[in-house]
């Protein structure tokens, strides 16, 4: 397929950009380019056809089943896109007066409030652009915490050997040394080994729970306490939050700092459809190190006008009267609810939003302004669409779907750990490879011929010939049945006609790619013909 640069013809173009409606400003001297950039020159129709053709050659969650483990490729509801496309959200600039962007400020504050509630954290920054960026931010918070206490010998971050590869990478990027601790026979953190590993040089622990073999670590409270007692902090990798959202909170498990992937758990697009967003949350004791300025109510709640005050007070009085009429045990609960509503009204409706001072010991901004704002709009839309009941129900269905699919394929391919899983599970094809020469890679490629995106392969590293499947809550029983049937067929082919699987995929726009060649001799740029 031709690149857009190869389609370019001098002098062609399209009128997608509006005429300039501001005075032209001439740059001087050093800021001016010496040569014009070599942008492709194509007509609008050729441009559209180019991207349409590219889209046809891609496989997204809108095209078919996408059980990519630890990536939570759930459906991205279209209402999220509709809300994020509202002009009030798109036709703004981060530097325009705050009085003109109060709605956007409210979105950020509301998203922060909900995400804090879901994760059990006290503060949240929307700056990090994606998960690994969030991890780095979290590691820098932990580093700043120890440095502020002049506890500089804490240089080691403990990471289980089942961790996402980004965990040790982020810790090293933040200047820590990484200690890897083994998993036990059940796929959980080996608590005895963890005890041996901690000391006065422990800066913290990075953990995801449920972990990458799809199991909830039942020793989680003991694990986080071991780290706290040693003087370290606990970091929660939010990649697998989908399994527990609305059911259990990292903040209650003893974690001090977390990142969330809005593009996984909160249904915003990723995998080529991004950008992502990796908000970082922390407990109060880390707030003083957070990046960026927090959003706050300008005059605490004195900003609300009198009429609004009256309305809110009246509503509260009515609630109180209703309460008095109730004598049963429910009344306490209702009283709390009424207070919460009043508080929420004060905080949200009556507020005039402004930026507070940058935290005194802030690690500094990790990204300009407020991160990928429109992704936050989509995630907030998702949270508000599902609501208090829908959020935990989504987690339940994610776990149910994973267990359903696992139970259908566990007799075909052995499951690495456990009888039940959370939101994902890991198969091992080690025996199959010995028996037939068919590796996890071949089965993954075979799935492509059935229109299914491959699962995560060769991860976690503690499982040989691993395939990690995460169906997510949005898949129907029929889709899961079909996927199980395809995996059964592939096993049959592996045993009867392994060469056919070695050659897969054959129905895709490109066949088996030379992954080794691509890694050894990557071609990362286009050479213009001179």
């Amino acid at each position: 397929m031709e690149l857009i640069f190869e389609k370019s013809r001098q002098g062609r173009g399209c009128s997608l950009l509006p005429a300039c409606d501001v005075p032209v400003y001439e740059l001087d001297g050093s800021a001016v380019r010496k040569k014009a950039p070599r942008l492709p020159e194509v007509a609008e129709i050729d441009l559209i056809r180019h991207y349409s053709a590219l889209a046809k050659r891609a496989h997204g969650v809108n095209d078919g089943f996408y059980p990519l483990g630890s990536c939570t490729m759930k459906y991205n509801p279209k209402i999220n896109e509709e809300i994020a496309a509202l002009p009030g959200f798109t036709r703004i600039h981060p530097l325009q007066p705050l009085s003109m962007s109060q709605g956007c400020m409210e979105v950020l504050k509301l998203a922060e409030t909900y995400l804090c509630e879901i994760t059990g954290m006290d503060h949240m920054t929307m700056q990090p652009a994606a998960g690994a960026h969030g991890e780095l931010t979290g590691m820098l918070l932990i580093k700043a915490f120890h440095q502020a206490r002049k506890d500089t010998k804490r240089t080691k971050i403990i990471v289980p050997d089942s961790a996402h590869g980004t965990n040790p990478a982020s810790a090293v990027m933040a200047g820590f040394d990484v200690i890897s601790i083994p998993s036990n026979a059940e796929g959980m953190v080996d608590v005895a080994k963890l005890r041996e590993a901690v000391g006065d040089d422990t800066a913290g622990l990075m953990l995801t729970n449920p972990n990458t073999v799809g199991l909830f670590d039942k020793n989680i409270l003991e694990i986080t306490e071991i780290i706290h007692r040693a003087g370290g902090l606990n970091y929660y990798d939010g990649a697998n939050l989908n399994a527990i959202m609305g059911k259990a909170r990292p903040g209650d498990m003893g974690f001090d700092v977390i990142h969330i992937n809005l593009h996984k758990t909160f249904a915003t697009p990723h995998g080529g459809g991004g950008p992502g967003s990796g908000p970082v949350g922390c407990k109060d004791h880390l707030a003083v190190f957070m990046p960026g300025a927090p959003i706050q109510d300008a005059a605490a709640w004195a900003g609300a006008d009198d009429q609004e005050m009256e309305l809110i007070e009246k509503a509260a009085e009515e609630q109180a009267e209703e309460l008095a009429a109730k004598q049963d045990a429910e009344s306490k609960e209702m009283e709390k609810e009424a207070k919460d509503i009043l508080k929420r009204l004060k905080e949200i409706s009556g507020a005039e939003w402004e930026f507070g001072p940058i935290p005194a010991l802030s690690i500094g901004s990790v990204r300009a302004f407020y991160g990928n704002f429109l992704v936050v709009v989509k995630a907030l839309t998702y949270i508000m669409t599902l609501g208090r009941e829908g959020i935990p129900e989504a987690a339940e269905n994610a776990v149910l779907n994973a267990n359903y699919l696992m139970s259908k394929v566990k007799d075909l391919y052995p499951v690495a750990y456990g009888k039940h899983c959370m939101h994902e599970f890991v198969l091992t094809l080690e025996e199959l490879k010995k028996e037939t020469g068919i590796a996890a890679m071949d089965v993954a490629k075979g799935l492509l011929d059935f229109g299914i995106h491959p699962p995560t392969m060769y991860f976690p590293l503690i499982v040989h010939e691993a395939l990690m499947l995460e169906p997510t809550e949005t898949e129907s029983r029929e889709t899961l049945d079909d996927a199980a049937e395809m995996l059964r067929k592939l096993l049959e082919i592996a045993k009867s006609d392994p060469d056919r699987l070695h050659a897969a995929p054959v129905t895709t726009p490109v066949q088996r790619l030379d992954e080794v060649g691509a890694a050894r001799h990557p071609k990362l740029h286009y050479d213009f013909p001179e």
Partner: protein
Amino acid sequence: MEFPKDVLYMKSHEWVKFLDDKTALVGISDHAQSELGDLVFVNLPLPEDTVTAGEPFADVESVKAVSDVYCPVTGMVAEINEALLDKPELLNQDPYGAWMIKVTQVTDHADLLSAEEYEKLIAEEA
């Protein structure tokens, strides 16, 4: 699968060849390169770095994963095999010829296996 007798092995699939009491070459075994698959990147220490028996001294990357390589001996890196940096595939093609580092001032070594013992270990794992 080859198990040359002029080198000693670690359980974690590295080999060491003593040139004399104080000097040794270190690489990965035939079994290791076969399990890792086609290697696409090798990260080596710098000359004059110290290495410790039983600790990682390098990492190798295949299209599947990045793996640590453990050092069979304690000493100082005298030389690295720079050819591997451009051609990591040499580790696949000739695992016992493609040494990774040359260590001098060797003072200690990890638990090492003979070719027979290592071959037995691989047979048991399979």
